């Protein structure tokens, strides 16, 4: 466990000393929140900002989770990964370090987005509801970062990862329940959206916001996390260059 902390410390120091990238990843979700959340003329609800905020929070975690892959890709290209693999410490520590770092970084970014949302007029919820929101976001972050870091092991260079990244993130976002409720979706989109893991997280947060206990969705996300992380650990243990 200690070793995971050292790996996280390394990534954290590199992140906060990067100056620009601390803020750059916030621009996109903040822009969605402000320009779409406040401006889009929507008929199905009188407060679109409250509706779209869970979607934007999950979107923030999505790009944070996929950035885990970018981090590992650069470690791989620059030779750090080989050095880490040649260490006697268990190789899954590298994986856990990346998962936890990117998920925690995602939660920090999500917090800033949440603060912006409240500042521009989103509803304030109870501490329990926020607690549930964070739990759901954390599970979703772990799921995405475990997936993206493991995917990188099979890719050759940063270009192919960047391509996969764009290929995944935009379609996932638009085919989820982030922007509109199931009731106003065309039939074909409703089916796709209900199978999209992004929707699991978004729907769970919306359920928590209405005061419900989204046990089912949290359970589903948790189970997905365990399965994907399990596969990732298996792959990392056997990895060769």
């Amino acid at each position, binding site marked *: 466990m200690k070793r995971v902390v*050292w*790996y996280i410390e390394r990534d954290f120091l*590199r992140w906060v000393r990067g100056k620009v990238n601390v803020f750059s990843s916030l621009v996109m979700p903040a822009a969605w929140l402000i320009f779409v959340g406040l401006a889009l003329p929507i008929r199905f609800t009188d407060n679109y900002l409250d509706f779209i905020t869970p979607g934007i929070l999950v979107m923030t975690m999505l790009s944070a989770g996929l950035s885990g892959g970018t981090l590992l890709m650069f470690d791989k290209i620059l*030779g750090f990964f*080989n*050095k880490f*693999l*040649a260490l*006697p*410490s268990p190789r899954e520590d590298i994986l856990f370090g990346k998962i936890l770092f990117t998920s925690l970084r995602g939660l920090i970014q999500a917090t800033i987005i949440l603060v912006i949302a409240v500042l521009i007029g989103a509803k304030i919820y109870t501490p329990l509801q926020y607690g549930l929101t964070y739990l759901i976001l954390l599970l979703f972050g772990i799921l995405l970062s475990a997936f993206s870091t493991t995917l990188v092991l099979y890719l050759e260079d940063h270009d192919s990862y960047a391509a996969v990244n764009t290929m995944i993130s935009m379609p996932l976002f638009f085919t989820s329940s982030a922007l509109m409720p199931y009731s106003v979706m065309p039939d074909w989109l409703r089916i796709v959206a209900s199978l999209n893991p992004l929707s699991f997280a978004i729907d769970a947060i919306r359920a928590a916001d209405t005061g419900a206990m989204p046990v089912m969705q949290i359970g589903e996300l948790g189970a997905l996390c365990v399965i994907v992380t399990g596969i990732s650990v298996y792959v990392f243990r056997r990895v060769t260059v």
Partner: protein
Amino acid sequence: MNAIETHDLTRYYGTLCAVNRLTLSVDREIFALLGPNGSGKTTMVLMLTTLLLPTSGSATVSGHDIVRSGQQVRRTLSYVPQDMAVDIKLTGRENALLFARLYGVLNPKDRVDEVLAVMQLTGRADDLVRTYSGGMRRRLELAQALVHEPEVLFLDEPTLGLDVAARATIWEHITALKKDGMTIFITTHYMDEADRFCNRVGIITKGTLLALDAPSALKAHMGNDVITARIDGEFRDPAVDGVTLFSYANNEASYLAENGREALPLLADAFIKSGIRVRSLALREPTLDDVFLHTVGKSEEPVGFDQTKFRTMLRRRK
């Protein structure tokens, strides 16, 4: 028990054979694997550091099998890849401390102070690596590799891209480590460095080990004198008895001669008779460069120099 033992170690990438039945033992010495680009040097290091599984054959590092006991192998070795992978946004001390902690060294902070002092980085330890020169980054990598006092040190092209002074410093450190009983396995392109600092060298081409001995022994084994001729314009081997051409590149022809002093005037005459303009002729003892060209040239006909083909080609041009 030798620090490194390999037996028929083989690695294929698809149908390409990167390392071909390589048998080797290395112990408490500086051993250099020499070879052209793509000859299998790095593949060899990757297998011995457990980053790549061999296709067949076996190897042990400090007595541990590289396939079955990967973790024990990794505990006894350190690996410095050729990429200069140090975090430029961290300080030298932070870089070294990370490795000391990951290796589970006792008193990591004291140990880091020690290795930084050995690598003469104490004064700059708390500066960001961004501000370090190439030579300092290399030394920092060595410091990282030494934190856990490894038995075997693998260095992939340790002096690549460094200036003369930085290279000299790196070799000073490597030589000192060997004196302390460490086994050092190096890959390099630089023959002069291998000649001066390594106890034994292995020459590898297309995955096959062609020569293995001390640099002095390899040179002595060539036995003969080397004559180099700088040629102006078109070149064709005048074919003198007792003199064999073994390489021609950049207008410089290298010959092996049984008796250099006697061959020199004969070769000069032959050149004049065939109408080849010679700028200079030099007689010298063989260097490791010559050994390398001789060994690699013999094995690798399409890429290396082939006298017969070369002559046929020139004849056709007339």
